[in-house]
C-alpha cells in the first residue's frame, strides 16, 4: 500500500486521527461529502511537496491524457527574485511541467503577461529557466494571439484573451499566494489577469466580479497554489524579505474557489473575507465552505 492509497483509504474510513501522517481533523468532516478535494502538502522540498500533493489525487494521469497540449500558467508578473515571493516558485512550476510530461503530455507551454518588463520577469523569477529545464516551451506572449472573446459576465462582456490558453487541451493554474492592496490576497482566480490582453488595469474598478467572470471562462483542470513562500505585506510585488514568510506548502485542487478559500486561511482570513471568493461561490463556481471540503494533509 503506497501513500496515495493509504490516504484514500484514510479519507473513506475516516480514521484519520489515528494515522501518523498528520491528517487534519477536517478530513473526518470531509468524508461526508467527498466531491471537493484539496491536497495540502508541506515539507522542505518545493518539488517534492508539489508531486506529493498531485499524487494525493491519484497522480497527474488523472488529469492529463496522452498527447495533450497543456498550458501551465504561473504568476511571473514581477521583476523579482524567487526568494522575494512575488512570483510562483520556479521549482513548483518545473515539478508540474515534469509531471505533465510523465503523464504523457505532448507539449507543455508556460507563459504569462507580466506587469514589469517580460524579459526581466521571465529571467529574474527563475521560472523560464526552471520550466525550460523541465522541457516546457516557454514563450513571451505574442500580441497577435490575443483575440476578442465573448465572456458574457456581469462585469466583462468581452475581452481579448490569449488564444493559446483557450485552445489548450488542459490548463493548469500555478499561482502564488500573496498580499494585494485591493483584493487583500491574490491567488488562483486573480492569476487569470495574466492571459488578458488590452488595458486590463481597468478591471480593478469591478475587480471581484471581473475575476469571477474570467474564471467562468477559463476552466483549469487543476489549480496548484504555491505557498512555499508567501508575501504578507507590500504585495503583490513585495521586495523586502521581511515581508516573506516561509510556509513550505503547496495546495492542489480542482476547485479554484476552494483553493483560494483555503489559501485565505494561511493568512489568518476566511474565504468569505475575500470579495471574489464570495462572488465566485455565489455564482456556483465552487465551494468556499471548507467544512465541506475533503482536505488531505500530507507531510513530506
Amino acid at each position, binding site marked *: 500500500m503506497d501513500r496515495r492509497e493509504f490516504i484514500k483509504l484514510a479519507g473513506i474510513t475516516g480514521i484519520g486521527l489515528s494515522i501518523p501522517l498528520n491528517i487534519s481533523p477536517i478530513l473526518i468532516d470531509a468524508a461526508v461529502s467527498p466531491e471537493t478535494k484539496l491536497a495540502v502538502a508541506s515539507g522542505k522540498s518545493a518539488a517534492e511537496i508539489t508531486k506529493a500533493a498531485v499524487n494525493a489525487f491519484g497522480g497527474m494521469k488523472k488529469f492529463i491524457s496522452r498527447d495533450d497540449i497543456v498550458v501551465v500558467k504561473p504568476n511571473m508578473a514581477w*521583476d*523579482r527574485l524567487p526568494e522575494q515571493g512575488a512570483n510562483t516558485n520556479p521549482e513548483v512550476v518545473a515539478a508540474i511541467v515534469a509531471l505533465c510530461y510523465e503523464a504523457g503530455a505532448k507539449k507543455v507551454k508556460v507563459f504569462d503577461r507580466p*506587469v*514589469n*518588463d*517580460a*524579459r*526581466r*520577469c*521571465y*529571467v*529574474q523569477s527563475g521560472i*523560464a529557466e526552471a520550466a525550460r529545464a523541465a522541457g516546457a516551451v516557454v514563450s*513571451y506572449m505574442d500580441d*497577435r494571439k490575443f483575440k476578442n472573446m465573448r465572456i458574457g459576465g456581469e462585469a466583462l462582456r468581452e475581452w481579448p484573451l490569449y488564444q493559446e490558453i483557450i485552445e489548450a487541451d488542459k490548463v493548469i493554474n500555478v499561482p502564488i499566494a500573496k498580499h*494585494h*492592496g*485591493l483584493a487583500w490576497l491574490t491567488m488562483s482566480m486573480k492569476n487569470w489577469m495574466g492571459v488578458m490582453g488590452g*488595458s486590463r*488595469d*481597468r478591471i*480593478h*474598478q*469591478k*475587480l471581484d466580479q471581473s475575476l469571477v467572470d474570467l474564471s467562468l471562462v477559463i476552466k483549469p483542470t487543476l489549480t496548484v497554489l504555491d505557498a512555499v513562500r508567501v508575501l504578507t505585506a*507590500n504585495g*503583490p*510585488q*513585495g*521586495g*523586502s524579505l521581511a515581508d516573506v514568510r516561509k510556509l513550505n506548502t503547496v495546495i492542489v485542487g480542482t476547485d479554484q474557489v476552494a483553493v483560494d478559500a483555503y489559501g485565505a486561511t494561511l493568512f489568518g482570513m476566511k474565504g468569505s473575507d475575500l470579495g471574489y471568493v464570495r462572488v465566485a461561490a455565489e455564482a456556483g463556481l465552487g465551494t468556499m465552505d471548507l467544512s465541506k471540503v475533503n482536505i488531505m494533509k500530507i507531510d513530506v
Partner: protein
Amino acid sequence: MQTLRRISQGIFLLLFLFLFIQTQSRGADELGYPVKIFLDFDPLIFITTLLSSHSVQKAFYFSFVIIIATVILGRVFCGWVCPLGTLNNMAGAIRKRRSDRTNIAWNRVKYYLLIFLIVSSLFTLQLAGVMDPISLLIRSVALSIYPLFEYAVRAIFDALYAFNPGTADGLSEPLYSALKNSILSFQQPHFKQSAFIGFIFIVILGLNLVQKRFWCRNLCPLGALLGILSRYSVLKRSVSEGCNECGACASVCQGNADPDKKDGWKNAECLYCWNCDDVCPQNAVSFGFRGHRVDVGSKGKFAGIDLGRRRVIASALSGIVAVPLIRVGPLSRSGALSPELIRPPGSLEEKEFLKRCVKCGECMKVCITNGLQPTLFDAGLEGLWSPVLVPKIGYCEYRCTLCGQVCPTGAIKKLPLEEKINVKIGLAMIDKGRCLPYAHSTPCIVCEEVCPTVKKAIWFEEAAVRDREGRERTLKQPRVDLDLCIGCGICEAKCPVKSRPAIYVSNIGESRSGGNQLLL
C-alpha cells in the same frame, strides 16, 4: 588591396551591428557585451569630453589606440574601420564612376567644424556628439533606421500571419521567430523625432551622390582630427618615375588627397583606401614606410590645405561665442527647466550632465521600456537629442541599471542596483480631478499595485463617499509618500486614465539636483 580593405570594412561594420543588436536586455542584470566600445575608441569624443568636463572615463584609453595608429599609419581608421565610412562607401556605389573632384574646397569645412567643436568644448560646451560619426551613426540607427527596419519586417510577417494563420505557422512563423531571436528587437521601438533624425542620416548618405564619401571628405570632424594627427604619419604614399600623369588615380580617390599631383599628395585627406595603387596602369604608386618626403605644409598651409588664418580664427571665435549664445536662455535659471525633463537614474547634475552627454542614443536604445526618448529643445539647444524619460511611453524599470552601463562618457553614472533603487529621478503627484477614486467614486488601485519601492510609496487613505444615489461607499484613495517615491513613473505609465494620467511624474525632487528640491 581593395579586397582586403573591403573585408576589413565588412568585419568592422558587422561587429558594429552585432554590438548594436546586443544593446538590449535579455532579462539579466548585465548585457554581457561591450556594446559601447566603438565610442570608447573614438578620440574626438575623448578629447572633447576631457576638455568640457575635465573628466576621463577609463574606457577612453582605448582611443589612444586610434590616435597612435593614426600617427603612424594615417587615416586608416576612416578607410578601413569606420562603420559610417563603410556605409558611405556602399551608398557611393550607386553613383556612376566619374571624377569626384569639385572646384570648391568643401573639404576645409570639416576642419572649421573641428575647430568649432574643440574650442566650444574647451569652454565647457559639448556639441561634438551631434557631428561625431560614431555617435551620429549609433543615434541614427538606434532611433530611426533600426525601428524603421523592425517596423517593416513586422508588418510583412504580421500580414502573412493575418492572411493565413494556418500556413504561416509552418512557413513564415519559424523564420519570423528566428529573426526575433537574432536581429529583431524584443519589441517595436518607438522614438520621438525618428523621422527627423532619419532624414538627416539619409541626407548624409544621399550626399554620396553629389560626391563619393561627401561626409568623410568634407564634414566629418573626426576625420579632420585624424587628418591633423596623420600629418607626420610614417606610412606614406610615393609615386615612382613611371607615372605618366594619366589621372586614373584622381577619379578613384576616396578623399581629397590629390593623388595625381605626385608630390602634392595631401596625406591628411588620404583615407588610405589604396585605390590609387590598385588602379595605376603604370604600377607607379606605392605605400610604404620609406617613401618620399612629402610636403607636409609650407607656411600658412596645413598638409597642403590652405585653411586660411582668418577662417581658422573665425571658427574658433564662433566656438567661443556659441557658448553664451546657447546658454543665455532662461533654462539655466533654476526652476526654469521643463518639469518633464526627467533624466535617467544616475544622471549627473544638469550642467555636468550636458558637459558629458554626447547624444549617442545608447541609453535610449537599451532602455528596457522604451521610456528614454531624445529631447528636442526641452534642455536647450545644448541638450538636443539628450535622453529624457517619458513615463507615458515607458517607465523606469526598478531593478534595471542598463542606461548607466552603456553611457560612454559617464553622463549617466553606472550605479550598482542597491544604489540605483534609491535614486530619485522625480516625484509622482496625483491629479485629484482625474483620479477615479477621488473624482469619480470608482475603485482603482493600479498605481499602488505597481509601485515598486520595497515599502510602497503609494498608500491608501480610506474615504467614505456617496454616489449619485446617495449610497455610501468606502474607497481607497491613493496618496504619495514623497519620501519614498523615486519618480520611476510606473504609476503614470500604468494609470488607466490613459489620455492624461491621473498620476504623473515631474522632475522636482530629483536626487542629482541641489536646487530642484521640494521637501525640507
